[in-house]
Structures are given as structure tokens and as C-alpha cells.
């Protein structure tokens, strides 16, 4: 399988074009991403650039592929054998779908916050320390410092500092969600992937999480999946509207919601409100 000289040159040119096409200002780039589950085409030729330190909201009706797109970004789609993923997702110039890099290391670049919190079966302290230990930190003082720092970062430290060795079960669902966020931040991710993180929370807890996202975007890029239009308006720097596995429209919330171009977004806005 030797390549001819012309073919090799053409091959190198293609690679160079692909490399120069990668936007260095973007923390994550998706190119020609397609996901199939048998005959069902779940994501159709997705192309997307996620800029640094912004909140990007993936908006759309149920089943439009938002969560699948999010799971592609940290390769949680690998768990499902039925899903066939093709295309490119670049993080720091590394194509995570076609890389030899260890998948757990790729996942550590992205913290995931699910629809409902899943604290690990260990104490509040160990939940946060778990992520730190995964990064290879063994020094007890360093771990203590990091646990305190990340619990403070999510505004949970004052509420749990006297109960660090208790089960997370004693916390409210909102507090558990913030604990999961602190645990995710302890792994030092570049991006926070949030899949409807406030859907199981009461309005007060939701507001706390939203405020946290506003603060966290100074240091992290946040990709948020939501159904709630108002939440998108409140939080988003950019909104990506999806329907039926495709990106229909994207832009700033002001532009997108004031002057929607597509009929699907208009219809979604009418029903969503």
C-alpha cells in the first residue's frame, strides 16, 4: 500500500489545509460530525466552533440530538455500541474521535454535569478528592487545599465544612449538584459540559447554579444543554438551535430570539414560551 509521490503531496496538502482550518481561538471545533444508531441518523453533519470562556447553549426540542452531541464531546458515546460516530472533534488541535490519546485523559478535559446529580458512594470530602487523586496528586495537604478551593468555588464550603466526612445523601439535590460540579472542577477541565443541570432542581437551587455558571465562565468554557428559553436568554453568549439532528440556527440570544430566521425556531419559541 505505497502512495505515489503525487498522492503523498496531495495527502500532505489535505492535512495542512485541515490543520490551518483549525481555529486557534476556539477551544473546541466540530467538523462533519455524524452519528447513526442503526438506520436512524441522529446527528447530521454537525459543524460547530466553541469559543473560549463563553457559555454556549444547545437549545432544541426533546430528541433533537443535543445530549448525543454533548456526549460525543467527551466520548461517552463509546459506551453505546449501537452508536456509530464519524467526523472530527478538535480539542487543543487534537482530534479526539481519531486519536491514540488515552480516552480517560480526553474526558478529564471536560467536566460533565448531568440532569440529576450522581455523587459517588463516598463522603463529601472524598467525592471531591477523588478527582484530584485521579490527576495523580497524593500529597494530603495539597488534596485538602484543593477540596476546600473547589467547594468554595461552587459556594458549598460554608454549608459542608463541618460535615465533610458525611455521606452526600444528607445534602439537598441542589447541594448535591454543586458537589458534582466541584468534583468535576477538581479534575481541572477546560470545558464544562452541562446536560440540563437544573431540570431536577427547585427555582432557588437553579438560580444558584446559573449564577455559578456566570462566575465560572471567566475560567472555563461552558456548553449547556437546555429546553428552557428563558435560561438560554439569561446565560448564553451564543445559542445553537437544533432540530431533528441538525443545527438550524446559531448566534447571540439577542439576535436569534429577536429575529429568528427559521420557521422551526419561531415555532419552538411560540410553544416554548
Amino acid at each position, binding site marked *: 500500500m505505497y502512495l505515489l509521490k503525487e498522492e503523498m503531496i496531495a495527502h500532505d496538502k489535505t492535512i495542512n489545509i485541515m490543520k490551518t482550518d483549525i481555529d486557534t481561538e476556539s477551544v473546541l471545533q466540530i467538523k462533519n460530525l455524524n452519528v447513526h444508531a442503526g438506520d436512524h441518523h441522529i446527528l447530521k453533519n454537525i459543524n460547530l466552533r466553541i469559543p473560549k470562556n463563553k457559555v454556549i447553549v444547545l437549545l432544541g426540542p426533546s430528541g433533537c440530538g443535543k445530549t448525543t452531541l454533548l456526549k460525543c464531546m*467527551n466520548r*461517552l458515546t*463509546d*459506551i*453505546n*455500541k449501537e452508536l456509530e460516530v464519524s467526523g472530527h472533534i478538535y480539542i487543543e488541535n487534537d482530534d479526539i474521535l481519531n486519536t491514540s490519546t488515552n480516552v*480517560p*485523559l480526553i*474526558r*478529564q478535559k*471536560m*467536566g*460533565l454535569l*448531568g*440532569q*440529576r446529580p*450522581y*455523587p*459517588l*458512594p*463516598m*463522603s463529601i470530602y*472524598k467525592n471531591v478528592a*477523588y*478527582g484530584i487523586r*485521579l490527576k495523580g496528586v497524593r500529597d494530603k495537604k495539597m488534596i485538602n487545599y484543593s477540596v476546600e478551593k473547589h467547594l468554595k468555588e461552587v459556594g458549598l464550603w460554608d454549608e459542608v465544612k463541618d460535615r465533610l466526612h*458525611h*455521606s*452526600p*445523601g444528607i445534602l439537598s439535590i441542589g447541594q448535591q449538584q454543586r458537589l*458534582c460540579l466541584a*468534583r*468535576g472542577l477538581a*479534575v481541572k477541565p477546560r470545558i464544562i*459540559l452541562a446536560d440540563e443541570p437544573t431540570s431536577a432542581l427547585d427555582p432557588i437551587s437553579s438560580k444558584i447554579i446559573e449564577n455559578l455558571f456566570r462566575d465560572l465562565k471567566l475560567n472555563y468554557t461552558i456548553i449547556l444543554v437546555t429546553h428552557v428559553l428563558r435560561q438560554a436568554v439569561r446565560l448564553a453568549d451564543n445559542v445553537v438551535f437544533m432540530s431533528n439532528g441538525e443545527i438550524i440556527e446559531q448566534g447571540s440570544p439577542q439576535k436569534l430570539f429577536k429575529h429568528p430566521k427559521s420557521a422551526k425556531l419561531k415555532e419552538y419559541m411560540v410553544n416554548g414560551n
Partner: protein
Amino acid sequence: MFSDISFTERRNMNKRKIIEEKLFRVLSAVATYSLIATLAFIIILIFIKGFHALSWDMVFKAPKGGYYYGGEGGVLNAIVGSLYISIGATLIATLIGVPAALFINVHLARYKRTQNTIRYIIDALWGVPSIVYGAFGFSLMLFLGMNASLLAGIITVALLITPIVVRTFDEVLCTIPKGLYEASMALGSTRSEISFKIIFKQGFPGFITALLLAFGRGIGDAASVLFTAGYTDLIPIHLDEPAATLPLAIFFQLSSPIPEVRERAYAAAVILTIIILIISLAARFLSKKYTKTNLK
């Protein structure tokens, strides 16, 4: 819709629902309490019949000459043999069964068909009668040139109880939410870290249940050890020596025409029940202690 139904019809409907509800409750309660009553009856019967023969000598002494004809001594040989065999077999079953259950749930999570085939095979193994395991163990023993011994008994009982450990633990692991796997994976944990640091910890009460079921089956089974462990009045010291077991001790004593010896059989059954009770309580205590931080 309600306007189409008369007041009397509605009242009759309500009455029927109330009767149905009461009937179902009574039937369920009868089923539950009759089960508890049966268990209580068995234990009480054993205690009543065996209490007179129960003595310190019986627990702390091995049989002396003519024990099975009413002579002096006890069943220490069978107690020790049973504990050796069931603890050894449970240990082997755990070493094989726990990684197997974790492998099915974590590593084969993507391969549903393979998962189901393996579960089907293990279920079939669970259903095989213990006498078949005994016969298999006996053939294996002859093939390897071994005599009836503690080791042969341990291996045969381990074969018998490994499917119990795997499937019981596996059933508990199935109830762990997928979100916990995803959350652990998203942190960058490897599958081994997820298996042993998170999923095993979350499924620990299920592991204890699996252990108890397996130990209970192991210590109480007579057919699998009949040909493989043999029977002796001596306490085994080495793995290649034959070992007596409590179920066989009960069987031999119960077959005796001497009433006094038959009473001792019930006393041996009391000892077996107490051993299982102690192990069960200890396991529940451990389970509670080590799952304090688990989410319920």
C-alpha cells in the same frame, strides 16, 4: 364521562374496589405471614427436639468411639469441616464471582447480547442440582488422582456456589443507575477504577447478600460433599485429609434407630442454624458499616 354513570353504579364500583383492595391485602398478608410462620415453626421444632441433646461437649468435642451408637463426644469435627469447606468455597467463589459480575456490568456494558448469553449460562449453572456437582467433583477427583478430601470438597462447593455469587451480585449491579457509570467515566476514571472504587462500593450490600446466600448454600449442602469431602471423626489439619460436614453428620445421626442419637441430629441442626445466624448478623453489620456514605 361521570355524568353517564348513575350514582348507584358509581357507589357499587367504589364498593367493588374497596373489596378488591381488602382481599388483595389479606391474601398478601397471609402469604407473607405463613412464610414467616413456617420458618419460625422449623426453628422452634429443631430447638425443641434438639435442645436436650445440646451441650458444650457436643460443640467442643470430636466424636469418640461409638458416638453414632449413643457413645460420648460431639460434632466438633463436622463443625470445623463445614466451616473450612464453606469458608474456603465462599472465598474461591468470591474471587471468581465478583470480578465476573463486575466484568459483565462494566466491560460488557456495550454488548447486551453477550451479557444476556452469559447471564443465561450462569442461571443454568445455578439450576443444576447439587448432586450433579457432587458427581462432577467426584469424577474430577478421580481424574486428578485425589482422594475424598477437604480440598475436593472446597472445589466442588465452590463450583456449586459461584453462580450464586455472580448472579446475585450481578442483579444488584444492574440496579445501579447508568448515570453513576457516566459520571465516573466523565471524571476520567478507567474501567478498573470504576469497577472497584465506585461500582463495587455502591453494590457492597448486594455483595454481602450474595456472600450470605452462597455461604448458606455451601454450609448446608450435603449432596455435593457426600462423595468429595468424605467423612471422618477426626478434625482435618491438611487439605488432603477427609472432612466431616454438619449436613452429613445430621443425616447419619437422623438415620440412627437410637432415639438419643436422633436427638443429637436436631442439636447439630441447631448448631448449623446458629452458625448461619452469626455469619448473617456479622455480614449485615459489616455491610452497614462500609456503606454509610453510599447514596440510598
